């Protein structure tokens, strides 16, 4: 996949001596499918909005970054030169055929994987961290704060902030903060200040600790704490690691490279598989493939793999919901387990967000993607098998994608043409060795949803949606 010929012929890639496989533009699915543009619920339709009198409106994101989430005009959006130069430190990322895995599984399939773990921070998160830090730095922001689940996003943002001379403060969900102390060291090595969330630094954190001093934390809570901190400092802004359209946009370098790399091999996938937290690694690999498939007039199957402990797509409801515990970010329609749901602690902390992002949710609602939920035991088995056969240890989140992919290829009939599958390995698991060690020792347990907690959370979600005031003459927007 490449932009229009006049853009591709600009000569910028060759002139800079960059690898021509590195995209010079992000692929914008909103051009092809403008119906996916995020529509937020008007605050005037929430009871209690009047209490916010005197509250001003300020941009949290630089305008040029924020407008990317709403752009339906341009199919390809230019990547700033400075960001391409930084991408060139680790891109293009490898695309390989998993021949030994195919043989071990004995399946009628050709399995390709894209590996995003071979950069300093170890995951795909760097693709958007560098872009966001660039825009914030250019806009004059001095400090970025964020919430992180597995810690991959926090690590990536810490590094990007160091590159762009920004201060960085990170609220890290307690359950993974304690699981992965070395990853915290990496964030601090890049100059970030790291807090365990819930913390006593913000009202959001203090409220969570008051309710349960031993709270394991949620990404919604960590994000709420970061937002609360940003709200009290004019030189500080909140950065988000997934879910927003602009974040998915930045990740499309993955899928664009894959299209080119597969084309060099004379291949095009029948199916793309990726894990689903809020949708950035999934969207990053799947959206350009979807665009290329539609250009070629051929079908493509997109499979999102979520954690059985947090099955937002397969068991969630498509409703308006808050994305964080502070509740100040736009309220969008998403597949959600409810913002008060506390998923049980699992090693794949990056899959613990209570909702999918609005774009991935809209795709699931219209049938453009399939979803499956995988238990962490199954994912660790798949991750170890991938390590044994391919020499790559996937992050626990990525191991879910491997498990989902194995499920897909195992069901493909022998009598048909081989299934061509692409799976995204979004990060490495070298900072998760304690998890793999525990699994190998038989100490990792199967974890499913907290049914009682989910029931309460879904009830609260429905009550929230029922409380939305309908404007005169109109129903709740679909």
């Amino acid at each position, binding site marked *: 996949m490449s932009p229009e010929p006049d853009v591709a012929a600009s000569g910028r890639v060759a002139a800079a001596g960059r690898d021509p496989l590195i995209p010079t533009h992000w692929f914008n699915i909103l051009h092809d499918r403008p119906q996916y543009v*995020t529509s*937020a619920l*008007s*605050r*005037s*339709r929430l009871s209690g*909005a*009047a*209490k*916010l*009198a*005197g*509250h*001003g*409106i*300020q*941009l*949290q*994101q*630089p*305008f*040029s*970054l*924020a*407008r990317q*989430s*709403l752009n339906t005009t341009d199919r390809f959006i230019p990547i700033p030169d400075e960001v391409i130069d930084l991408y060139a430190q680790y891109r293009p990322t490898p695309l390989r055929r998993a021949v030994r895995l195919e043989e071990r599984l004995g399946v009628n399939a050709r399995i390709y994987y894209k590996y995003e773990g071979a950069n300093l921070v170890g995951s795909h998160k760097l693709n958007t961290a560098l872009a966001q830090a660039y*825009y914030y730095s*250019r*806009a*004059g*922001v001095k400090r970025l704060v964020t919430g992180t689940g597995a810690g991959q996003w926090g690590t990536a943002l810490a590094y990007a902030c160091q590159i762009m001379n920004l201060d960085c403060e990170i609220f890290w969900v307690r359950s993974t903060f304690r699981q992965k102390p070395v990853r915290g060291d990496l964030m601090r090595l890049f100059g970030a200040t790291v807090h365990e969330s819930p913390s006593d630094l913000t009202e959001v954190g203090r409220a969570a600790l008051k309710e349960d001093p031993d709270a394991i934390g949620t990404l919604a809570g960590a994000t709420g704490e970061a937002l609360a901190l940003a709200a009290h400092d*004019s030189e500080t*802004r909140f950065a988000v690691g997934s879910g927003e359209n602009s974040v998915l946009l930045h990740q499309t370098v993955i899928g664009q490279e894959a299209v080119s790399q597969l084309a060099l091999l004379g291949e095009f996938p029948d199916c793309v598989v990726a894990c689903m937290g809020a949708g950035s690694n999934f969207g990053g690999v799947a959206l350009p493939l979807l665009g290329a498939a539609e250009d070629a007039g051929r079908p493509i199957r997109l499979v999102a793999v979520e954690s059985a402990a947090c099955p937002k797509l397969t068991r969630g409801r498509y409703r308006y919901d808050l994305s964080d515990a502070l509740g100040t*970010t*736009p*309220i969008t329609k998403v597949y959600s387990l409810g913002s008060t749901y506390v998923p049980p602690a699992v090693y794949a902390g990056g899959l613990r967000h209570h909702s999918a992002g609005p774009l991935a949710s809209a795709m699931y609602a219209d049938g453009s993607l399939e979803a499956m939920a995988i238990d962490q035991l199954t994912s660790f088995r798949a991750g170890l098998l991938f390590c044994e056969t391919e020499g790559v240890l996937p992050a626990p989140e990525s191991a879910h994608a491997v498990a989902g992919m194995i499920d897909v290829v195992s069901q493909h009939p022998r009598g048909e043409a081989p299934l061509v599958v692409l799976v995204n390995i979004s990060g490495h698991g070298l900072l998760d060795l304690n998890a793999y060690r525990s699994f190998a020792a038989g100490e990792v347990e199967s974890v499913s949803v907290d049914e009682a907690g989910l029931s309460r959370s879904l009830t609260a979600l429905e009550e929230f949606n029922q409380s939305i005031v309908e*404007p005169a003459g*109109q129903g709740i927007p679909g």
Partner: protein
Amino acid sequence: MPGPCGQLQQSGGAAVATQDSSEVAVSDLSRQQATSVVFGALTAVMPDLQVETLTEGQELYADLGLDSLGFVRLLIELEGKLSVQLVDEELMTIELVTVADLVELVESISLRAAK
């Protein structure tokens, strides 16, 4: 110290379609015309609003329900109506409470265009 839009980039000789469909140069906007542009932009991004009910004293967030996403839509709409390119650095520092604040933002764009 520059105004809230001190580094706006403007395409030359741009004209603005006001609420009554008349075209006015960006650099010549009166207060009334700036208000008309703002009301037009607000109703474009928030179709639930009726222009007859809008006043400058209304609060964007508390009264009209405009959130940060709506604010971005509004700025994109204003860029189109005023034929200007808004610059990140200047927009990050502004905080708007009322419709009147928004009208003053448009006036400052007009003022810059006149210089």
